[in-house]
């Protein structure tokens, strides 16, 4: 009896004792963000799991920006020290790692996230700790946390211009294809409201699970509905299967162009330029965007990570986030959150996509909308832009057709 009783307790005891003591040891006192010779900053992206393929590129761009700042002497005379964590494509893990970066590493700010789900998971952590998150990816809007800076596009800087472009081109019948999660669903809600107000007709709406790779059914439905254009909010791998199925069915970009909002240079390489050439994408930055700042950025990125690497919109937005934060800290003279927030208002920098200004009202940035045409070499050529940076409007308050959406 005694043996039967003891052995499980021994195992349990050892494990728990190990965990508790390790927890204590792991909590070595850290110097605080701005003490010592360095300023710690958190970099929190998925380095494993389904999102890793996209998020690793953003991490690389952010680390490049940190290295550039350090090479130029750092911020407030101190070098930046990145603390990299893996969000593992798992939303509670993002929250856990964010908390770890804030309370254990005492980072001055965090750059991170990609999916809306990861942002929604991290939002309460940053609000609760009064710490700053810089979120670098275009998203579905309807959010404006006082502790998040959004350096990617909100809907009125990407989706609405995409629709404007289709309307100008005389496309009346639109089919919606998207992955089944919050961004495509919210985006499509906005698209439907826009269509209703602008005499466009939505002839179909299809959602497939994230990671889905069987698109013959959807393509069949497209063939039957014969829309003038397809608005594509599929994410990740699904795009590969979708564009292959589209091409396999003999549907050309001329007959039925698609506008994609989650396909950038990185994804074009994965899909295969042959399969997607001639289709449209909507972003705020392309590797081909003209300007000296972008030439420097692309050259620096290739020099650091390899000549065959491409740069894309989310990477550029992540790079911008680091530069904007550093400028705000330099202006504030401290890394203290409230001071940085106040200093960030109205900061304008010349960045790869052009002049980027932070809107103090909602902590988004002004961005020029750009519609691009995918080229056979995998690059994207701009065919239309909004002429000037568009003021961010995450709740679409400035659009009469959008009342009732939020």
């Amino acid at each position: 009896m005694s043996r039967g009783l003891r052995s499980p307790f021994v195992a349990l005891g050892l494990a728990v004792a190990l965990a508790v003591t390790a927890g204590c040891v792991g909590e070595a006192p850290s110097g605080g963000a701005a003490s010592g010779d360095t300023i710690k900053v958190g970099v929190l992206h998925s380095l494993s799991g389904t999102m890793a393929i996209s998020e690793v590129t953003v991490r690389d761009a952010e680390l490049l920006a940190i290295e550039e700042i350090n090479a130029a002497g750092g911020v407030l005379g101190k070098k930046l020290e990145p603390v990299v964590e893996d969000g593992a494509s798992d939303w509670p893990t993002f929250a856990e790692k964010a908390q770890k970066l804030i309370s254990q590493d005492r980072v001055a700010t965090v750059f991170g996230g990609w999916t809306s789900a990861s942002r929604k998971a991290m939002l309460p952590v940053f609000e609760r700790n009064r710490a700053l998150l810089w979120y670098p990816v275009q998203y579905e809007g309807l959010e404006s946390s006082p502790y998040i800076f959004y350096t990617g596009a909100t809907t009125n800087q990407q989706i609405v211009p995409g629709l404007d472009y289709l309307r100008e081109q005389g496309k009346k019948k639109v089919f919606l294809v998207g992955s089944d999660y919050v961004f495509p669903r919210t985006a499509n809600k906005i698209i439907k409201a826009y269509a209703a107000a602008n005499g466009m007709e939505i002839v179909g709406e299809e959602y497939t699970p994230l990671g889905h790779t069987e698109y013959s059914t959807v393509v069949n439905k497209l063939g039957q509905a014969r829309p003038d254009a397809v608005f594509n909010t599929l994410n990740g791998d699904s795009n590969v299967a979708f564009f292959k199925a589209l091409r396999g069915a003999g549907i050309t970009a001329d007959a039925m162009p698609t506008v994609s909002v989650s396909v950038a240079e990185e994804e074009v390489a994965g899909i295969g330029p042959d399969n997607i050439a001639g289709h449209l994408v909507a972003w705020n930055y392309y590797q081909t965007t003209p300007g000296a700042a972008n030439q420097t950025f692309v050259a620096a990125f290739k020099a650091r990570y390899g000549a065959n690497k491409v740069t894309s919109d989310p990477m550029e937005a992540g790079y911008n986030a680091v530069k904007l934060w550093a400028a705000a800290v330099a202006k504030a003279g401290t890394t203290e959150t409230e001071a940085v927030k106040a200093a960030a208002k109205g900061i304008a920098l010349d960045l790869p996509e052009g002049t980027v200004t932070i809107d103090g009202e909602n902590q988004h940035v002004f961005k020029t909308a750009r519609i691009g045409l995918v080229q056979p070499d995998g690059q994207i050529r701009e065919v239309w832009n909004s002429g000037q940076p568009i003021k961010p409007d995450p709740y679409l308050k400035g659009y009469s057709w959008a009342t009732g959406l939020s």
Partner: protein
Amino acid sequence: MFLVVALLLLAAPALLPAFRLELLAKWLCYAIVAVGIHLAWGRGGMLTLGQGVFFGLGGYAMGMHLKLADAGPGALPDFMVWSGVETLPALWAPFRDPVFALAMVVVLPTVTALLLGTLVFRQRVRGAYFAVLSQALAAAFVILLVGQQGLTGGTNGLTNVRYFFGLDLYDPAGKRIVYYLVLGALLAVFLAAWQLSRSRLGRLLVAVRDGEDRVRFLGYDPAVVKTLVYAVSAAMAGIAGALFVPVVGILGPADLGVVPSLEMLVAVAIGGRFSLGGAIGGAVLYHYASTGLSETFPSAWTYLQGALFIAVMLWAPRGLAGLLASGLSLLRRRRASPPAAPAPEEVPA
């Protein structure tokens, strides 16, 4: 030994910073699931690859109530607002009542497991077929949750849970109370499993595992035994899920699908599925290792974790608890030079 563990766990809030305490509470939630898996798989031989479903049912029952309570009377939870839902879905309305929600935490997983168990075990589905079936259930459950965004929050799940029956979860004091709740639940579940294993039902269960047909010839119905224990293990997963919500503040399909369900099982395998303490220790150790390794090696930790699992499966198929027990008995045999009659090993077929 038990005393040392109990004291350490009781003193943890004083020893650990708030952030680490929150993590420990999360691991203890997984330990509660592990107790259920120990019963179903270790004792009963039911390879259940879908505990995430029951974890999720309990978790959503709790989460729905907490989101409604956070929103306040007459208002909608935040995710419904951005998903375009204008009136509260009928499915949600009864969860405003805390008593109903708390009951559902246990009732939903139990009833689901009873139904499934009755259907499956009566048809004498077992082994790999049962494993595949339970895993398919987990996959289907996640697709359902993701597809019903207005009802369940979709891929985001339920996020930003701030209050737990009046406790402010942003406040370290609130976190401490929740930690003790989890600890209390773990103790209760532990004692229940302990008692069940020693009861008639528990002995029948082991008999069913080792020779189902023989038990049937003796006049017992193995399907009833298995269904009952499967339901108990589901209820435990449900309780763990319900506690996970205030501890972590988020619950979504990412915590409930095939991979997290497998992780729950792998943790128990590492700790030792035949030992109650091993299962609990395994769950804590596994998740501790995930956190520790991923903090130290953010780019390579998944490989290390995989290597750890392979090492345990190769050299300690009965888990760490089995390894420890063999080590102890070896020591004892050495010490007592004339070897006494070997203790009856608790090794299954």
